[in-house]
């Protein structure tokens, strides 16, 4: 029996499709659906349909928290990319025998449990902690300054946690990049910086997009980090969702918040995608063509 290339393609992508539909699309739709169910006093999901949750989402605190969540996640992504690109560049330009060692260095933190590393930060940032003492010694902070329980601490630990995830895809792209292209650009009159911006960055753009997604999406849903090193003023939407589930035992409300977060991310992404579709050229637009 012979299969055409189309059939083969479909068959090959079937497992991942089943995975995506079963474990991603269906649960997301379920979350959306549960938002329209009433809650039961025992923390379950009741029968029938109601708009009670939607009305509850009008809570004036939520826009602030969603805005903060998006802002912190975007900042985390931006900082991670900014740090990861030079890192990946130097890793990829290092002598071959050094490279796997450098990749190891990036991966080693994963050997320690995530929670333990977050608690380690808590100890470091503590008013009596190492970092505070060190900064005091350098007279960079005043004795009264609190390093923890604020947005800065959350951002710092988020960047720390996700930096490796940003470095790895960018490194993979950088390693494949033909550095001869930078010489070609310089040969054509570009300064080193210009060559890096105009030739290198577009060359690793795929890695950067992957890195941005891999950092931004988990950062949006982060809950442990703001819970441990953040305070009431740096709560993220993940904390609110957790509170609704564990404290209020209100699953529909938690689902509503989750749905809101999903929409807050998916809608702008779809808009961007549509805009890109409309002008497919972007960089490759013919120079000054009518």
């Amino acid at each position, binding site marked *: 029996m012979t299969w055409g290339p189309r059939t083969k393609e479909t068959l090959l992508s079937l497992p991942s499709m089943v995975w995506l539909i079963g474990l991603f699309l269906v649960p997301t739709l379920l979350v959306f659906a549960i938002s329209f169910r009433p809650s039961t006093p025992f923390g379950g999901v009741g029968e029938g349909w109601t708009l009670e949750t939607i009305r509850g989402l009008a809570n004036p605190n939520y826009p602030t928290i969603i805005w903060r969540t998006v802002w912190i996640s975007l900042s985390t992504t931006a900082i991670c990319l900014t740090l990861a690109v030079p890192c990946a560049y130097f890793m990829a330009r290092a002598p071959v025998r050094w490279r796997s060692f450098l990749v190891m260095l990036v991966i080693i933190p994963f050997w320690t449990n995530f929670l333990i590393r977050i608690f380690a930060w808590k100890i470091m940032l503590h008013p009596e902690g190492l970092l505070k003492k060190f900064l005091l010694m350098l007279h960079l902070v005043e004795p009264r300054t609190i390093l923890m329980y604020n947005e800065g601490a959350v951002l710092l630990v988020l960047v720390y946690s996700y930096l490796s995830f940003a470095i790895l895809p960018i490194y993979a792209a950088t390693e494949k990049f033909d550095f*001869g*292209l930078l010489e*070609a650009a310089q040969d054509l*009159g570009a300064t080193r910086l210009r060559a890096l911006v105009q030739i290198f960055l577009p*060359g690793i753009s795929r890695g950067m997009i992957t890195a941005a997604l891999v950092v931004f999406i988990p950062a949006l849903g982060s809950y442990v980090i703001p819970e441990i090193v953040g305070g009431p003023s740096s709560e993220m939407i993940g904390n609110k969702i957790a509170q609704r589930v564990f404290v209020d035992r209100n699953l529909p409300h938690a689902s509503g918040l989750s749905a809101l977060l999903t929409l807050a991310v998916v809608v702008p992404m779809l808009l961007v995608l549509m805009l890109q579709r409309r002008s497919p050229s972007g960089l490759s637009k013919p120079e*000054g063509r009518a």
Partner: protein
Amino acid sequence: MANEFSLEIKNVTKHFGTFTAVDDVTVSIRQGEFFSLLGPSGCGKTTLLRMIAGFEVPDQGRILLNGEEITHLPPNRRKVNTIFQNYALFPHLTVRENIGYGLKVAGTDRTTLRSEVERMLDLIQMEDHADKKPAQISGGQKQRVAIARALINKPQVLLLDEPLAALDLKLRQRMLIELDNIHDEVGITFVYVTHDQGEAMSLSDTIAVMNHGKIEQLGKPGEIYEAPRSSFVAAFIGDTNFFEGNVISVIDPEYSRMKIDGLGEVTVFNDKHIQQGSPVHLSVRPEKFQLGRDRPEDPAARLNCFEGVVEDVVYLGSHTRYWIKVGEYRVAVMKQHARFLLDEKPVRWKDRLWLWWHADDGFMLEQYHEADEELLSVPDTES
């Protein structure tokens, strides 16, 4: 341009760690010249090119472009452009944008940029592919885009780093002609790096044969081929036969007699200062030999005739290589047609033949290294 020389390289040396890539090279390249750096990999030709382009800085020595020192200028401030071996076209830009990149960087206004790019597209006949990405065009087309991208900047010198190495044979031959035409058209100096003697021979005004970081011989293609100075040049450029012996007498200012061990006495042309009794090596190209069933007439006594036995006949299409055992030597002889003898019978294995060459066709080498014999396509001495 006021200067006679487009490019002057003065005592340039470059080390990488303990390895000396370029060793005290001095050479001057005339305006508009097609200059080739020819040599095996690792001979320093690419390093020299990269120093001219500005990607490497010499440890010692100076490089002058039209009389101005550029030794320490960064690549973007030199009026030279490079065509890279793998073309190095920017994959995210279209053909048009690739060609226009240099002018865009230079801040050329839009109208000029557009018309210049169109002119270049016309020159390389790529108008129909102007909006394609490099991944969508063929190797030969990429090559042409790379040439246009360099030439649009009107460089004073165009550097070419093995530009044809990635192409297949037919395309390479076509691009050779195209490169030659482009050189005639733009009239600027070309510095061409290659390990392919055929490319260098057919394109160059001057060839510098490089070995171990030094220029072994500098000259016109004909000079390099006909009068190689060292065993390296003789063996690297085409094939040859080496003979070892001593000068026994200087007959007159033009000719000497030389005794080749295991062969006999021969007459050689005195193109070098030689002293009686000095050991020398003689190089005779395979196509310089004549073959015949009878000993030729030689009233002027300028021919070196020996009787030998055909040991091998290798048919190579356009020509045939014969291995002939003469004395202790196994001599490679190249002939174009199978029926070149007077009796029109083809030369066969085990035929007894006369083999001779004119005294002017053998060249005494100034330098001889036994290792260079490995460069010959088939070792020609005792097998």
